[in-house]
């Protein structure tokens, strides 16, 4: 069994700071479109995938959902002041909600890469897990 969360951000640096800071390492997608970390636990894998391009966050989400890719949670990382991405984040939250699938979605607006420290990134993922657990229980 696998649980897959997506770190969706127009900022590649932010995604890599997030994954690298928390997990210490990540794999780069062979085509250069994202990053991936797999944490193995008893009974399954926890896969965290980083992806996103400015102006196409919603498109990426749609493609994942319509393509039948298993997505259990989405953490949207937005640089402060990026209003276009913020608007996309709101659409994504509506989109996943209306899909009827138990996908947890959280949005985090950061001021600088320095905000993405290990404790804060861990806390953000644990918050996403809590929301995911609520979806599963409902």
């Amino acid at each position, binding site marked *: 069994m696998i*649980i897959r969360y997506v770190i969706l951000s127009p900022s590649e640096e932010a995604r890599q700071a997030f994954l690298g800071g928390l997990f*210490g390492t990540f794999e780069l997608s062979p085509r250069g479109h994202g990053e991936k970390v797999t*944490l193995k636990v008893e*009974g*399954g894998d926890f896969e965290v995938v980083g992806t996103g391009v400015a102006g196409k966050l919603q498109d990426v989400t749609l493609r994942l959902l319509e393509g039948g890719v298993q997505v259990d949670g989405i953490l949207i990382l937005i640089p402060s002041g990026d209003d276009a991405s913020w608007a996309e984040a709101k659409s994504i939250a509506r989109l996943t909600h209306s899909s009827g699938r138990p996908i947890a979605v959280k949005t985090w607006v950061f001021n600088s890469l320095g905000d993405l420290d*290990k404790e804060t990134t*861990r806390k953000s993922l644990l918050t996403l*897990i809590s929301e995911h657990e609520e979806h599963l229980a409902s």
Partner: protein
Amino acid sequence: MSEGTRTKILIVDDEENIRHLLRLAFEEGFDVVEAVDGMDAFEKALEIKPHIILSDIMMPRLDGYGLYRKIKSRPETASIPFVFLSAKKDVDERVVGLEMGADDYITKPFSIKELKAKVRSITKKINDMKELGSLEGLLKEVDLVDVIQLIEMGRKTGMLLLETSWGSGRVYFEQGDPVYAMTESCKGIEAFYSMLSWKEGRFKLGQKAVSIEPNIKHSGGQELLMEGVRLADEMEESIRSLPPGDTVFQPADDPGDAEGELREVVKAYSGGVALRSALALSGLPAYRFYPLTREALSKGLLVGQTDAAMKADLLRKIRTALEKL
């Protein structure tokens, strides 16, 4: 039975009132011949070659089972459809009748309407076989068991081809007897039994004699079919009794004393696997896999959780792992 020829029906019963009742029911549309016991019926069957025999079981001189054996032992009467009529409601009696290969078993007091419907259904099959040079159709409209019975009744030789969305299969018949079967994943008796549970797709009988090394050994096509139907029923019943489709199973902590195929089935669920995926992983035919899964669950060798419960369980472990990073 060509067009314009009436169907000959032989009614065998030692009770005159029953024979009379059946004559009244069938004389419109059928040529009805009566026999008072098994011996009388056998002699008349040899003489008139009826298209169908309706026979009581408990009769003097020669009972219904004895008559059935004699009818099936003679090439000239072996293909005549045979329906047992009996006051016995005992399930074992019914099973004996059907396992012997009878086309149906109807208990008294029977509904004339039901009996006429059965007879019409059987005679239609005979007509279909005689009128069709080849047999083809959709499995959702005609059960494969019926198709095979038609082939058997018509003593056909040829290859029955089945094509479905998940693969194809073929059965070769010689004089109505299935002698060779194969699907894309197995051969022989296993393939034959697997195909009996196929409910979708197309079938086509090509009546061309093919020289092929038999891979099905059996003592009678009817027995083979009965066993196949039993296995298909057992599989359907197992599927119905299993938890919902999104349930993921995994081996229990204590594997117990599972051996052989049961062990293979339990192993196929290692790591938490849904039913269909485990079926593919096990390599076993569906008619074996589902009942074994049911057995494993009843013995506590497997534990099942819905997908949501499995994920919640996994999330707890992920949370712990994240806190330790």
